């Protein structure tokens, strides 16, 4: 089987797992839970095989184009971390691995319903944006071990941040009491927007199904064009209304979700602990891999270790948000909910660093464009 077929299988499996985890939340049957875990593991195994297959495919391409390259160099240069598509796949892989570790360590499945949607969103994004899945030759600036280490460690850190996002959000759901409370409003709106964006992107995909060559075109001509930014003002108004109503419904009936999570054997303290621990692992990795290795690579390739280009600046912003998180725990009266909000915002910054900069802002980084 080719790697793209295997990736297709793992995508379908993860989306199935997401549905079953959500069913598990609703019905709490241990049979459903075991099924969800099994399916996730199947998805993980097929994704692992897919990544290895992809690696061998790009290895043979690399050695064909660069016969003089040594074995180790060829293996490194063909590592599947070479473009946006491959890095998203790697991110999902790390995320699922981290999730499975937590599921086994804490013997609790209810996180699944909160982690698998992130994986689903990432994979759906790959198909919606129809980014290039081709194995392309590397331009000289990208032929660097620093870059390889930088990308790999960044995505490991992003996966830990995604986990802390899920547990932080769950913590907020469990802890927020009144509908007028800021933390309640925050989690309902965040969750609402998350689902709305996912759905709108789904509509775009259903309507256009085109291969978009370039992020500019994606933004200008396709993104949300099937809903919010539709040519037809009727559709546009209906979309905005539907989104507002949906977010209102999440806000109005959010306590149901709270009751469901509350009835699972999961304590806010445990969620807080997992949030902190994920960030405590992710932060040093992000510092070294994301910021320092990135700076060293830029220094080697461009002759400047820091140039305040949007991608760099957004990594720094993300870093500061997580530094904010780590220090806000030291402040009096900042335990719990406020800190969890910072953890959730941190991941929003991650998403922006990763996708927003490529899609919305242009930069010196040629790496990671949708092309």
């Amino acid at each position: 089987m080719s790697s793209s077929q295997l990736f297709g299988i793992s995508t379908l499996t993860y989306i199935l797992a997401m549905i079953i985890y959500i069913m598990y939340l609703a019905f709490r049957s241990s049979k459903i839970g075991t099924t969800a875990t099994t399916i996730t593991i199947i998805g993980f195994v097929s994704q692992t095989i897919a990544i290895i297959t992809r690696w061998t495919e790009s290895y043979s391409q690399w050695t064909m184009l660069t016969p003089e390259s040594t074995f180790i160099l060829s293996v490194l240069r063909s590592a599947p971390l070479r473009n946006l598509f491959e890095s998203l796949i790697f991110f999902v892989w790390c995320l699922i691995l981290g999730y499975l570790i937590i599921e086994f360590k804490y013997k609790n499945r209810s996180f699944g319903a909160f982690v698998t949607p992130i994986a689903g969103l990432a994979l759906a994004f790959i198909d919606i944006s129809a980014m290039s899945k081709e194995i392309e030759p590397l331009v000289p600036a990208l032929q660097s071990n620093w870059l390889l280490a930088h990308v790999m460690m960044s995505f490991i850190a992003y996966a830990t941040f995604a986990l802390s996002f899920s547990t932080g959000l769950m913590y907020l759901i469990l802890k927020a009491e009144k509908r007028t409370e800021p933390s309640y409003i925050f989690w309902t709106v965040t969750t609402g927007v998350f689902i709305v964006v996912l759905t709108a992107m789904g509509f775009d995909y259903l309507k256009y199904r085109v291969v978009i060559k370039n992020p500019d075109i994606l933004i200008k001509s396709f993104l949300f064009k099937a809903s919010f930014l539709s040519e037809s003002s009727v559709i546009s108004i209906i979309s905005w209304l539907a989104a507002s109503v949906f977010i209102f419904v999440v806000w109005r009936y959010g306590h149901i979700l709270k009751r469901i999570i509350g009835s699972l054997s999961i304590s806010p303290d445990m969620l807080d602990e997992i949030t902190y621990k994920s960030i405590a692992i992710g932060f040093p990795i992000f510092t070294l891999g994301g910021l320092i290795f990135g700076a060293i690579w830029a220094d080697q390739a461009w002759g400047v270790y820091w140039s305040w280009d949007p991608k760099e600046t957004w990594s720094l912003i993300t870093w500061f948000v997580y530094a904010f998180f780590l220090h806000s725990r030291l402040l009096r009266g900042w335990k719990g909910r406020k800190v969890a909000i910072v953890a959730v915002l941190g991941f929003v910054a991650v998403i922006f660093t990763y996708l927003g900069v490529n899609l919305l802002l242009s930069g010196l980084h040629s790496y990671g464009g949708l092309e």
Partner: protein
Amino acid sequence: MEETKKQTILDKVWDFFTSVTLAVVLFALIAGTSMVGTILEQNAEPEKNINILVKIFRIGHETAHSVYSILEKLGFMDMYSSWWFTTLLFLFAANLIICSIDRLPRILKLIKEPVKPLTDEQFNNIGKKGLLLKGKPEKVKDSVGAVVKRSGFNFSETKEARGYQLHSEKGNYTRLGIFVAHFSILLILIGAIIGIFFGFKGYVEVPEGESRTFAFKRTAPLTSTEETDMQPILKTLQKTEGNASETAKHMGIDEKILRKKMNRYGILPLGFSIRCDDFSVEFYGRSNMPKDYKSWLTVIKGGKSVPGFERQKIEVNDPLIYDGITFYQSNYGLVPGAQGLFLLKLTSKTGVSETKQLHLGDRFVIPETGMEATLADFSPALSFKPGGTPFTSDKQMTNPAVLIEFSGIGQTKYSGWIMKRYPETWTLPDGSTIEPMDIWGVELTGLQVRKDPGVWLVYFGCISMSIGLFIAFFMSHKKLWVKLVEEKNNTRVIFALTANKNRPGFERKIDKMIALLGRPDTKPVVTGKSGGGKR
């Protein structure tokens, strides 16, 4: 009176800078303002940012113009070097320094203070585990001590009423980890400042075979008078190997004035000469996507090439450093109107071959055939229009080709393009071949030139920050107390522990120790909770 008042103001300032609250506020401010700086394009032409404002706020061009001028006055168009952003960074540094100084004595005390035996009350307040061992405390002590020691804890012991207490700690220096991490941020900032004040960033293009003694940094656009004024300076700099004072002498002007002018024109004198001996670019297959490009550079000082810096190869991700100045392969292109030197390998049908160095317009003879030929034309990127007319399709040397015209005696005149990328074009009708080996002198290499005396401090700070963070997050200060209490000729061994990080991991280690000593008690010694985690 005066004295105490001063004291309190100083105290207040000090307190202000020791607070983590300030740190958190600064994190938020720096992150928030940086976001603005990524939306507005920094150091761009006004039109660009006005358009961005129009797009974001959906306002008219007029309004956008006024918003722009306000933002411009506030420094948002070159935000990261604006006074208020610099102030934020400065406050941030002050916060870090003062907070660290303030906390260091307490941290050192925690590190230096030897672990003391616990009182019974303290013992009861921390979580503990235990077991009962046969024999009197004096006897049991040795085996317990051996196990504790094997886990890496050096202990001291205290005699108590009904037995002994062993007390020990490990990893007390890991408390310095976060101090090191914070301090490293300062090192990085200092390194960056040194780079800004004593370094430069520039760019220079060197054609194959030529040399340069200066680079250019970015400046505001020059007027045409300034352009004209600049030329003699560049010429003299070429003669003096980029020596500013020599240049001033040669030109008969004051050195200070010269330096001012150079600063305005963005001229960065190198103090030596850098020559591009050769440049080469390879593409993936027959595509126009570069696979690798490299230059061979020679450093020349005092008219002679410097040993060890002759024909040094540089490529992307692999620069050359000389005298604190780094040359990065960053770009390449064609020299406008360059003539070039062509290296052709001529092989006759019978295999006799000969290599020729030729200029455009030169005549040569194909060996053995006596056929005469002229190197008539050259194109760096030859393509053919649908009708078959050749044209140059690219500003890079993606498909170099030479036009050869033959004029053999008694033969019809024949001419054809020979393309480096397509070996099938090398063979002539009579079976002999012309292989284009190299074309030299038509390409130029674009070099990023940087001097940054602070970079090593930045790297050092990065390394120590990583080490500090890894210590802070993955290592901990552990304390262990073991109480040996006589109980009817047997000994009850009780373990108590604290750790400032990862307490569960430490507890598992203690469980292992207990397992080594014997079966753990079925009955817990005290039904206390595992409290007292962080100390």
